[in-house]
């Protein structure tokens, strides 16, 4: 990361928020004031509003919302990471296969992508859910990733095609460099920028999608917690249980907004580097 990005306050703040959430996810059991799945007192502590003892209140079966939020960060962020990793991996493989293929195969691969892009992502996910029923978190994350890589594949193919024509790639060939070396030294490093951007934007898309799926009943199953499941539990009475909506939603917004800012700043950074 270069000095220019480090001096950009928006980028630094967003990266710090993301870093803080990763730390929270790792340390959640230590940070959480109560065990996240402990029903504290079913008679007196059900659905109690935020108080000194329970900052974010309690839920319908007297569990501490703050603790569930912190532990839920683990599931949500892990699923996000797995989904983004899956979609980047598939996108890079498919996109570079298309870029390096003969014209007819390239066309076939890209038209397939176009067909896939025609289906809304949620429809794809719901049809998987209909076929396999409720999935455990990690397979669910893989499915999330597997429905979100089409754009990445297009990006990778376009970038590789453009890079192959770049002057410095031709210059390396003119210098007598072998093709694998040109790919390794002059093409792939230039792909890192766009991919970093794609990753952060994919994260911003996946986290709310997980929440949405859980909300619809296909996501994480109780007593495990994710931000989506917290929201889902309060879904029928959001006005009465405002603390169960507000805090997970704020957490969600902070992650998505930070990932978007990081992605956007990275994009601008690599754009400028390209042009200069």
């Amino acid at each position, binding site marked *: 990361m270069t000095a220019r990005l480090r001096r950009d306050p928006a980028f630094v703040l967003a990266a710090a928020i993301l870093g803080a959430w990763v730390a929270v996810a790792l340390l959640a059991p230590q940070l959480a004031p109560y065990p996240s799945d402990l029903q504290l007192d079913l008679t007196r502590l059900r659905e109690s509003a935020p108080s000194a003892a329970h900052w974010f209140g309690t839920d319908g079966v007297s569990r501490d919302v703050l603790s569930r939020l912190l532990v839920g960060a683990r599931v949500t962020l892990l699923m996000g990471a797995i989904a983004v990793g899956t979609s980047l991996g598939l996108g890079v493989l498919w996109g570079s296969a298309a870029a390096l293929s003969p014209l007819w195969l390239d066309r076939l691969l890209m038209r397939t992508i176009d067909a896939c892009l025609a289906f809304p992502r949620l429809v794809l996910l719901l049809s998987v859910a209909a076929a396999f029923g409720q999935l455990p978190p990690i397979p669910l994350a893989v499915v999330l990733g597997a429905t979100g890589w089409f754009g990445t594949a297009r990006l990778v193919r376009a970038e590789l095609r453009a890079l192959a024509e770049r002057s410095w790639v031709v*210059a390396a*060939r003119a210098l*007598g*460099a072998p093709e694998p070396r040109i790919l390794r*030294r002059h093409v792939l490093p230039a792909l890192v920028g766009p991919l970093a951007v794609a990753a952060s934007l994919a994260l911003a898309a996946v986290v709310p999608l997980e929440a949405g799926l859980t909300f619809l009943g296909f996501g994480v199953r109780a007593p495990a917690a994710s931000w989506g499941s917290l929201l889902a539990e309060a879904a029928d009475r959001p006005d009465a249980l405002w603390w169960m909506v507000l805090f997970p939603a704020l957490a969600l917004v902070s992650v998505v907004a930070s990932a978007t800012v990081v992605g956007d700043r990275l994009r601008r950074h690599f754009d400028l*580097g390209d042009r200069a």
Partner: protein
Amino acid sequence: MTTPFFEVRALSVSATSATLVAPVDFAIAPGRSLALVGPSGAGKSTIARAILDLLPRGLTRRGSVWLDGVAIHDGSGPWRARRIGALFQDPTTALDPLMRIGAQIAEVVRAGGERDHRRAARIAIDALAELGIDAPDARARQYPHELSGGQRQRAALARALVLRPALLIADEPTSALDVTTQAQFLAALDRRRGTDGLAVLLVSHDLAVVAAHAEEVLVLAQGAVVERGRTTDVLRSPQHAITRALCALHAPSAPRAPHHPSDGAPIIATQRLTKHFPVAAGWRTTHTALHAVDDVTLSVHPGEVLAIVGESGCGKSTFARLLPRLLEPTAGAIHSGARDVRALNGPALRRWRASTQLLLQESAASLDPMRTLDDAIREGLRLHAADAPHTHDARVRAAADAVGLGRALLDRPPAQCSMGERQRAALARALVVDPDVLILDEPTASLDAVAADHLLAQLAAIQCARTLTLIVITHDLGIVRRLATQIAVMYLGRVVEHGPAAEVLATPAHPYTRALLDAVPGAAGVPIAGDVPSPLAPPSGCVFHPRCTRPDRNDDCTRRIPPLLDIAPARRAACWRAAPALPETLA
């Protein structure tokens, strides 16, 4: 004395912390032309932009600008737009790529008050015709990318002049054009000065253009006028050091003596080398071919400097890429000594590429933006040098010194270096592997006059010191005069003339060579009309016949392709009328 009709009084431009242009005064009478010259960063373009109120935000303008006795101020936008036309350097960005040429000009006509759409379109076509654009009706219906660079710039000029402004501000209008289109453009401009009394403010770094097309000149350096006067006086006896330096850059140098090589084998010889690019035409893809390089037989001997000249689109750059086999020829042969270059592959091909270095056009962009200059120069050594890596440091530094690249720059990425510095780094990268042949594709195209001069001086020194063989692709005859020992003139993919530089420049045998020489600013000749025909459908017979002005051209020219034949010792030309001694049997 009458009041000058365009006048700038105490115009200055400043940013918050610094003055960019010190107060300047000048005036231009109708039909006259005043040139602003100076090295890059002297403030020439800033003055032009200040007059047009196009300064970037944060810069403030002081002083006043008067046209026809009326002061132009910030509120006089539409009036100014009618009275002052503007034209900028890059013809590719000046026009909207998504609008037809005619519509773009008609838009200006309507902005000028014309209500009738059809009449506006008619005026637009007339404006194109007036600037010598052939088939103006067809051009008006085309998009900018369908036009050649010269046509685009003339279309932009037509748009700037369609409202018959009193003044045209032209900022480096011909820098991106080759010599023949530049001559056509400047001739069109001069005509409008004569017929309409158009006044011109010309911003240029090219003193040859200024000498031929401006009566008065203002020399700027670091935002201040250092010298002014009549162009002829200033250029004949420059007073200020900056002016003298600029003039020295443009002093015509005598062509270099022909190189007399040892009668050894040529270092590169092509036989009937041809490159056609397949072009899909329409649906069901009926393939036609773009004839980029056609039937080129040329040889270069060790130590020669061969200049390949011709207008853009003549196949020069394609030819340059064929030699190191960055492109595969469609037909023909390339030999180096006894080696058949087309048969090479794998490591042998990579060694051939290393020994025949190509410096790409816009070589400043040929540096990987993520690697330092040092890393770029070192790459060739990592690939090819047999010696231990610790000796590479010294060789990288030696290469940097040889091209005049400061060692402090080596640790920087390209983005932190100037165009000239990047160009020199690309040159160092090519030289560090000790090539036998260096091919330079338009080496000075992206440099200002001072940086270009610097680079050419270094190239000449390096070529002498190492007995390097150079192949220089260019449309700039100034470079040819300075460097070349041999010249090959290309037209539409074919070599039309080849011979020793001094002889070709003194007594051109082919009408196209003569046309190129006549197009040099200040030359007495009439600029050649028209544009290079499409290489998709080259003309029949001699490809040059549609533009040929030889009075003795005849049916042979339109029917049969003239071969490149000896016309004198060491000289060849492909013209039916240039070879009086042509034996009948060959014809």
